[in-house]
């Protein structure tokens, strides 16, 4: 017989919480598996790619307290490198192309991160924005990006040389697999001892320094992971839509990912997912309506409303409600 009597109430609570969380994850995964039979797979893939992008961004803002206003650079780098390689070398399989794009973003993240963490707070946001704008100008002029036109007709190819991704359903499950793996990585990072230190730095940096933590190294690692996953999102998006364009590198994109995270809930794992889903749906819906020209005004208004009265985001507000009423 298992010695259940040795569990303290605290351990019991912890075990229950983990059980609830796992059940929640499994239910979500089940929904994601049947979703392409209910909704348009290309739309779902777009949501997943942006959700991954937002999750990567949230790792930095929500857990390290660093507001990057230049994450578009990583999304675009992943997209352009993957797109260029897949279009130029027909023998290359998509997973290798995506890997190359991700690594390129990782490298860029290392360089930008090392520069940006030299300044704090508001300066950090301005530095990342300026660096990303430099990348934008580079991609306009660089010979391999197709300039204003972008890269078109990137082949989806065959996964491992075996499974054709031209089929939307195959593509969808591949994107879902990428998302789940990357999300699990973020989840592990956040709940690891490393993640705890990161949160400590966010709450009180001087204290963390006084306790002997190498704060800059912790921040840099977070920045690099975040940049790499943002690049992975961009690379995957390029394979799905078979194109890479300047839109991804523009600073509006950096602003959009901030909005997705803020709207969904900063510092909650699922917030960015919800936020990305909402913003992408909103953009898709508005594009077809007479309000199509007002997208950026509406996004701006949501920004203002979020900051004024909705700072925990949708997931954060729901968590507050649940805590208030059920505990």
């Amino acid at each position, binding site marked *: 017989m298992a010695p259940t009597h040795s569990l303290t109430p605290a351990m019991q609570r912890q075990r229950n919480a983990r059980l609830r969380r796992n059940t929640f994850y499994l239910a979500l995964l089940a929904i994601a598996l049947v979703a392409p039979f209910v909704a348009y797979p290309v739309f779902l893939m777009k949501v997943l790619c942006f959700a991954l992008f937002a999750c990567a961004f949230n790792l930095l803002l929500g857990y390290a307290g660093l*507001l990057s206003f230049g994450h578009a650079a990583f999304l675009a780098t992943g997209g352009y490198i993957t797109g260029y390689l897949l279009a130029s070398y027909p023998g290359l399989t998509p997973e290798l192309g995506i890997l190359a794009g991700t690594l390129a973003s990782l490298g860029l993240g290392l360089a930008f991160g090392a*520069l*940006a963490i*030299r*300044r*704090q*707070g*508001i*300066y950090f*946001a*301005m*530095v990342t*924005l*300026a*660096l990303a*704008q*430099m990348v934008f*100008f*580079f991609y306009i*002029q660089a010979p391999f990006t197709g300039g204003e036109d972008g890269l078109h007709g990137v082949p989806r190819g065959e996964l491992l040389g075996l499974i054709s991704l031209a089929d939307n359903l195959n593509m969808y499950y591949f994107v879902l697999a990428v998302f789940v793996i990357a999300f699990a990585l973020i989840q592990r990072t956040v709940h690891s001892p490393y993640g705890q230190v990161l949160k400590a730095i966010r709450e009180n940096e001087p204290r963390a320094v006084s306790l002997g933590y190498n704060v800059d190294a912790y921040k840099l690692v977070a920045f690099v992971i975040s940049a790499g996953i943002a690049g992975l999102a961009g690379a995957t998006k390029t394979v799905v839509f078979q194109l890479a364009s300047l839109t991804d590198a523009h*600073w509006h994109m950096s*602003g959009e990912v*901030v909005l997705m995270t*803020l709207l969904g809930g900063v510092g909650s794992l699922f917030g960015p997912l919800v936020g990305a889903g909402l913003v992408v749906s909103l953009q898709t819906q508005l594009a077809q309506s007479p309000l199509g*020209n*007002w*997208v*950026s*005004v509406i*996004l*701006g*208004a*949501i*920004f*203002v409303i*979020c*900051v*004024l009265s909705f*700072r925990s985001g949708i997931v954060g507000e729901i968590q507050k409600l649940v805590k208030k009423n059920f505990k």
Partner: protein
Amino acid sequence: MTMIFGVPLAVFMGQLMLGLINGAFYALLSLGLAVIFGLLKIINFAHGAQYMLGAFAALLGLQYLGINYWVALLLVPLVVGALGVVIERTLLRRIAHLDHLYGLLLTYGLALIFEGTLINFFGVSGSSYPVPEALQGGVNLGFMFLPLYRGWVLVAALVVCLGTWFMIERTRLGAYLRAGTENPALMQAFGVNVPQLITLTYGFGVALAAFAGVLAAPLYPVSPTMGSSLLIVVFAVVVIGGMGSILGAVLTGLGMGLVEGLTKVYYPEAANTVIFLVMILVLMLRPAGLFGKEA
């Protein structure tokens, strides 16, 4: 013909002049950002949009109300500055007690609203604003031809920058402002109306942006997106100079304009990015910025 490193003198001086003009705008805008940052501790992401509103107000004033350039130069900063006062009173004040990053996000949202609304009415292509009659033509300086309007922009920008410096460093109001930057709570205890000071400061910073917008209207195409791309460069200028000193902001702005002009002469491909490269260099060598006090 005199040549400077293989470039004709007239071309060289012309580009330097263009760079200096750009630099004057960097200086005016980073000055406004620094003034706002000093007291409110937020980065005004709507600064570019407010600059654009200044240019548009001048253009529309001329087209629909027949307001001429000189009146616009006085009136528009007041009107747009008043808009800034309203923004501070109704929005920024409510989030003043929060992390200052929220101020950046809120003003970013406002910038999207301003820009998007004007794009809907006027499109993204620019309109031109006529150069005022008194400043048409130019003078031959011997080594180069100087269009009068450009000379005027440089003088006006410098006068306003120095005036702002004088007000902040040498007057009673400026002393309050500097004290408020150091310790607002103590100021309030001494009976100074700090909330009012904050409102006025934000309004003044916004008015500076609008003034720059009116100055820019006859030089650059007036379009809803004219402010946003400029603002990102100004951010880089602010990172380079640091926001600690007024004169530092002005000098960095002018200097970066010159650097940009020189790059245009010798390596035009990098003209767009040279300021960002300087920023990287400064971050590596002197992370606090050229005139910065704290990291």
